[in-house]
C-alpha cells in the first residue's frame, strides 16, 4: 500500500504538463468564446469590439464589463433561422441515433455470439473503416449516390425504378452518411456489454420455458442497456454539432446548428453571433455530456 502512495507523487508530477496544456488550449479558449459572444459585432479585423484590454488596468475592465451585452443571444432566440436550426439539429441527431441503434444492435449481437476465436477478427473489421478518413468515407458515398452513380444503375438494372432517383442533396443521403460514419461508435459499446454478458442467464431463461424472443426481451436487452446508453450518447452528442456530413450530403434548405455557426463565422464574418451559437450549442450538450461522463465512470469502475 505504501508503495502505491510513493508511486503517486511522480505520477502527479507527470500530469503537470498535460494539465497546463489542456487549461491553456481547452479551458481558456472557452472563456474567449464566452467573452466574444457577449461583445458587439464590428466591421474590423478581428471582427468584434474587444471587451477588455488587460494592459489598460482595472478602470478599463470595469468600463468594459458595463458594456457586456446579451444582444447576440437575443438575436439567437428571436431569429427563426437559429431556432429552426437548433430544432433540426436535435431532430436529426435523435433520428440518426435511433437508426444507428436499430442497425448497430443486430451487428453487435451477431459479433458477441460468434465463436470466441472469431470475435477479435470481427472487432478489427468493424474498427478498420474508422481508421480510414472520415471525409473519404463521405466522398465514397457521393460517388455511389450521384445521379448516374452505382446505386441508381443497380436500381435501374433491377427495374426497381424507371428513372434515376435524386439521392444527393436530400435528407436520405445525409442520414446514410451519418449512419455510415457513426456505426462503429454504436457497435463497439454495444458489443462490449453483450460480450460480457453471462450466457448462463439466457440458458436459465430458456430452461424456464421462455422462447428465444422472450428471453431476448426479458434478459438480454435489459442487461445491455448500459451499452445502449453509451452508444446512443457517443453518437448523439457529436451528431448534434455535425457540420461536414449535412454540408456535403443534405440539401441547401434547412441547416443544422453546426452549419449555421460555420456560415456566421466564415461567410458573414459575424464572430460574436457565431460564438453565441457555440455557447448555446454547448449548453444544449451539457446534460448528455454529464450523463455520458457518469456512464463512463460506471464502466471504468466495473471494468477495473
Amino acid at each position: 500500500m505504501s508503495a502505491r502512495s510513493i508511486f503517486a507523487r511522480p505520477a502527479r508530477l507527470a500530469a503537470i504538463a498535460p494539465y497546463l496544456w489542456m487549461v491553456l488550449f481547452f479551458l481558456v479558449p472557452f472563456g474567449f468564446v464566452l467573452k466574444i459572444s457577449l461583445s458587439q459585432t464590428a466591421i474590423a479585423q478581428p471582427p468584434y469590439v474587444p471587451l477588455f484590454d488587460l494592459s489598460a488596468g482595472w478602470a478599463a475592465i470595469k468600463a468594459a464589463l458595463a458594456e457586456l451585452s446579451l444582444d447576440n443571444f437575443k438575436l439567437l432566440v428571436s431569429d427563426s433561422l437559429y431556432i429552426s436550426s437548433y430544432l433540426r439539429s436535435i431532430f436529426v441527431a435523435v433520428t440518426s441515433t435511433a437508426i444507428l441503434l436499430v442497425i448497430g444492435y443486430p451487428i453487435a449481437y451477431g459479433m458477441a455470439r460468434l465463436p470466441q476465436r472469431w470475435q477479435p477478427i470481427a472487432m478489427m473489421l468493424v474498427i478498420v473503416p474508422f481508421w480510414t478518413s472520415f471525409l473519404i468515407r463521405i466522398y465514397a458515398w457521393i460517388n455511389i449516390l450521384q445521379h448516374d452513380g452505382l446505386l441508381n444503375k443497380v436500381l435501374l438494372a433491377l427495374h426497381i425504378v424507371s428513372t434515376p432517383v435524386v439521392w444527393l442533396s436530400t435528407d436520405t443521403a445525409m442520414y446514410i452518411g451519418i449512419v455510415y460514419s457513426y456505426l462503429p461508435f454504436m457497435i463497439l459499446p454495444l458489443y462490449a456489454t453483450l460480450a460480457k454478458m453471462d450466457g448462463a442467464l439466457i440458458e436459465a431463461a430458456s430452461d424456464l420455458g421462455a422462447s428465444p424472443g422472450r428471453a431476448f426481451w426479458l434478459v438480454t436487452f435489459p442487461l445491455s442497456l448500459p451499452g445502449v446508453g453509451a452508444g446512443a450518447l457517443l453518437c448523439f452528442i457529436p451528431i448534434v454539432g455535425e457540420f461536414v456530413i449535412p454540408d456535403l450530403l443534405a440539401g441547401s434548405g434547412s441547416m443544422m446548428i453546426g452549419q449555421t455557426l460555420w456560415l456566421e463565422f466564415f461567410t458573414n464574418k459575424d464572430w460574436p453571433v457565431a460564438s453565441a451559437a457555440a455557447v448555446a450549442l454547448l449548453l444544449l450538450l451539457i446534460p448528455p455530456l454529464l450523463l455520458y461522463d457518469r456512464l463512463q465512470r460506471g464502466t471504468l469502475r466495473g471494468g477495473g
Partner: protein
Amino acid sequence: MTRQVNRISPFNITSLALGLAFLYLPIVILVIYSFNASRLVTVWGGWSLRWYTEFFNDRAMLDAAWMSLRVAAVSATVATLLGTLAAIGLARGERFKGRSLFSGMLYAPLVMPEVISGLSLLLLFVALNAERGFWTVTIAHTTLTMCFVTVVVQSRLASIDRSLEEAAMDLGCDPVKAFLKVTLPLIVPAIVAGWMLAFTLSLDDVVIASFTTGPGSATLPIRIYSEVRLGVKPQINAICTMVIALIAVVIVVASSASKLSSSQGKSAAPL
C-alpha cells in the same frame, strides 16, 4: 455451456455480413474507380493510372499533402507524449486536487462537436496575436488527439498488475525507475496505438483545421473538401486511395512494431 450460446445462427451471420458489406463496399468502389481511365467518374473506361500522375503534377495539392503530413507527424508525437503523461497521472496519481477537472478536460473533446473546438481555439490564437498556419493547426490537433491517446494508454495502465511495480520497488527501485523498467515496456503497444490514432485523426480533420489555419496554408482535407463540394472528380478518388494506402501502411507497420515490443516486454519480465 458457452458453446450452446455462441452458436452460429443464420440471423447473426446475415446481420454481421450485411453490416460489414455496408462498411466496406463504398470504400472498395472508391478505390476501384480511382484506376478508371475515363474522365466520367461513372463510366468504366479501363484501368489507368492517369489520375495518380495528375495528382503528382498538381502543385497546390502536393503542398497541401506535405503540410498535412508534417502537421500529423508533429501533432501525433507531441500528443502521444502529453497523452501518455496524462494517462500516468490519472492511472497512478491516486486522488489529487483538480483531478475531476483534469479528467473532464480530457474526456470532453472526445465527443465535443468540432465546430466548437475549432472556433474556441481560433479565438484564443487571435487574442494571442499568433500567426495562423502550421503551428496553430498543429497545436489544435495536439489538443484534440492527446485526449484519444490518454484514453488508450490509461485503459492499458489500468489493466496492468500493479504488484509488478510494487515488487520492483521492494527490490530497491525508486518509483521512476520501477516505472521505466517495468511498466513502460508493458504499455508500449498502447502508446504506439495512441500515436497511430492521433496521426490518422490529424490527417482526417477538416473542421478544426479550417478554423485554425491561415491564408495560403491549407491542409489536404481542406483542399479535398473544397473540391468535393464542387462534385466528384476522378483525381480525388486517386488522392483518397493514396491516403487509405498510407493509413493502411501506418497501421501495419505500427501494429507489427508493437507486437514485437510487447513480446520483448513479456520475455523481459522475469516471471
